[in-house]
């Protein structure tokens, strides 16, 4: 136990004890080097489509700079409600069952703080996005990781879920398509999970931010499954589908009790999401579809390029069918995922993220983002190929 400085001692123990980010070290390494092709980026390489940016600029020219209601602009909530009605048949009342948040990040935090009491357990399938554990911990809940497996293409199985349930389990976080694995769950997969959820009367937080980036079949919204709507807090946004990461706007849909609770917190902590971002999001829903579909088409082409590339190198790689990540197994090189990442940056000047940054079950894997140009991806595959060839056993 290292001695803490006088001021560190005054930091909340909950926060002090949170593990540091597993990616910081590689960020610092890569940021210092020149000519690094970064495939470690969790955001699109596209710029937000012009019509969306223009709608925001116009709204600023018109002087729209004030607070919106806590729930968010009504027109935006109505557009979201209409979207879900059309695509999934789900009905969310725009006045009481939708809240616009500062990114899905905030929605996740609100959901945790709204439903968790100290000691409540939340089941989190891993490998997963870095924030889930942290948000549960900060809300005084207990994160319960479930290690999904490569042989199941990192889908959560009903057996894995049931084995993790205890009398203190309050909720399950589902996040498909998945960051970092690129895994998806089919309707049948999700129905099997829904059965366990209903049996044990669990709540579900479903983070569907990558729903539009599904390359095989269509995405199934978990809340649309029979019996799941009222027990699911559905999270989604615009960051990945419309390349709006920096705008910080997302939303949550759920039954009135949950949304009321979330708004209660939100009204005091954030007040409202930025009006400029909400205006832009509305434009995205109204007129952003073809630009979005074009981006998805390009991600799909790149996905195939990467899968082919990694398999040609002789690495085990399952086919990712969602998001913009591919999760090859690098154990054939004899290196750990951390060694692989560090040596790859130094020797080949390509940055990726070790699978363990996303949980223990990421061991032996690296997350490679294909949110980069075909030119950079091809060059990176070439460099990685040479790096791997030297070390394969």
């Amino acid at each position, binding site marked *: 136990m290292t001695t803490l400085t006088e001021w560190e001692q005054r930091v909340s123990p909950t926060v002090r004890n949170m593990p540091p980010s597993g990616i910081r070290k590689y*960020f610092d390494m890569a940021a210092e080097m020149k000519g690094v092709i*970064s495939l*470690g*980026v969790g955001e699109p390489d596209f710029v937000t489509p012009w019509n969306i940016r223009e709608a925001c600029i116009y709204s600023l020219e018109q002087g729209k700079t004030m607070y919106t209601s806590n729930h968010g602009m009504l027109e935006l909530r109505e557009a979201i409600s209409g979207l879900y009605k059309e695509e999934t048949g789900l009905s969310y009342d725009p006045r009481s069952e939708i809240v616009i948040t500062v990114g899905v990040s905030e929605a996740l935090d609100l959901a945790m703080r709204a439903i968790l009491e100290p000691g409540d357990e939340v089941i989190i399938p891993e490998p997963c996005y870095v924030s889930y554990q942290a948000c549960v911990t900060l809300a005084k809940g207990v994160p319960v990781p479930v290690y999904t497996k490569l042989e199941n293409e990192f889908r959560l199985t009903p057996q894995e879920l049931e084995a993790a349930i205890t009398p203190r389990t309050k909720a399950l976080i589902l996040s498909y398509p998945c*960051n970092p694995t690129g895994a998806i769950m089919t309707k049948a997969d999700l129905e099997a999970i829904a059965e366990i959820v209903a049996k044990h009367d669990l709540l579900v937080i479903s983070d569907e931010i990558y729903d539009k980036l599904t390359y095989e079949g269509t995405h199934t919204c978990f809340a649309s499954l029979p019996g799941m709507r009222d027990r699911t807090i559905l999270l989604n946004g615009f960051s990945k589908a419309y390349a709006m990461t920096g705008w910080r706007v997302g939303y949550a849909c759920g039954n009135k009790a949950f949304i009321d609770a979330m708004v209660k917190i939100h009204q005091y902590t954030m007040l409202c999401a930025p009006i400029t971002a909400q205006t832009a999001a509305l434009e995205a829903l109204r007129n952003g579809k073809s630009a979005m579909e074009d981006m998805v*088409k390009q991600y799909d082409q790149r996905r*195939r390029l990467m899968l082919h590339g990694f398999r040609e190198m002789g690495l085990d790689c399952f086919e990712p069918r969602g998001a913009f990540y591919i999760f090859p197994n690098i154990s054939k090189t004899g290196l750990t995922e951390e060694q692989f990442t560090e040596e790859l940056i130094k020797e080949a000047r390509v940055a990726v993220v070790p699978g363990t*940054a996303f949980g223990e079950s990421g061991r032996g894997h690296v997350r490679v983002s294909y949110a980069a140009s075909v030119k950079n991806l091809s060059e990176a595959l070439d460099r990685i190929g040479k790096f791997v060839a030297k070390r394969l056993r």
Partner: protein
Amino acid sequence: MTRKEQQILELLEDDSRITPEKIAVMLDMKQEEVEAKIAKWEEQKIIVKYNTIVNWEKLGYDSVTAMIEVKITPQRDAGYDTIAERIYRYPEVQAVMLMSGGYDLSVLIEGTSLRAVANFVSEKLATIDGVVSTGTHFVLKKYKMGGVILNGKSDDDQRLVITP
């Protein structure tokens, strides 16, 4: 035209040097199938040409480009097409387009010097039967050609280098 066929053409349009092998991987098709389609489109002149955009200025070659607004009286039986053909047959003419608005044909020509361009306009273009008047505009600076920014700021990735 299927969506995949459209994507093949879009990929080629963006980078004419992309190999059929790579196209096949990216679109989940067989390489032979991609090659056969490309060959067919070349024959049908759907793929008209594979181009390379060269920034000659960077090498110190200064050429003169001019955009000429041409007003013409349409010919009997042939309309604008006959005159347009007489103009576009000249190799120095890069582009000819029929336009709406205050003039009829937009002609883009490239010559070795101002005088060469001026001579072309006065001796070859203005003298064509049916040409009523010409208005010559000289290009001072090219910013973007063929969808490519020429001397702009580099396309560096501005994103944080690693993010979750």
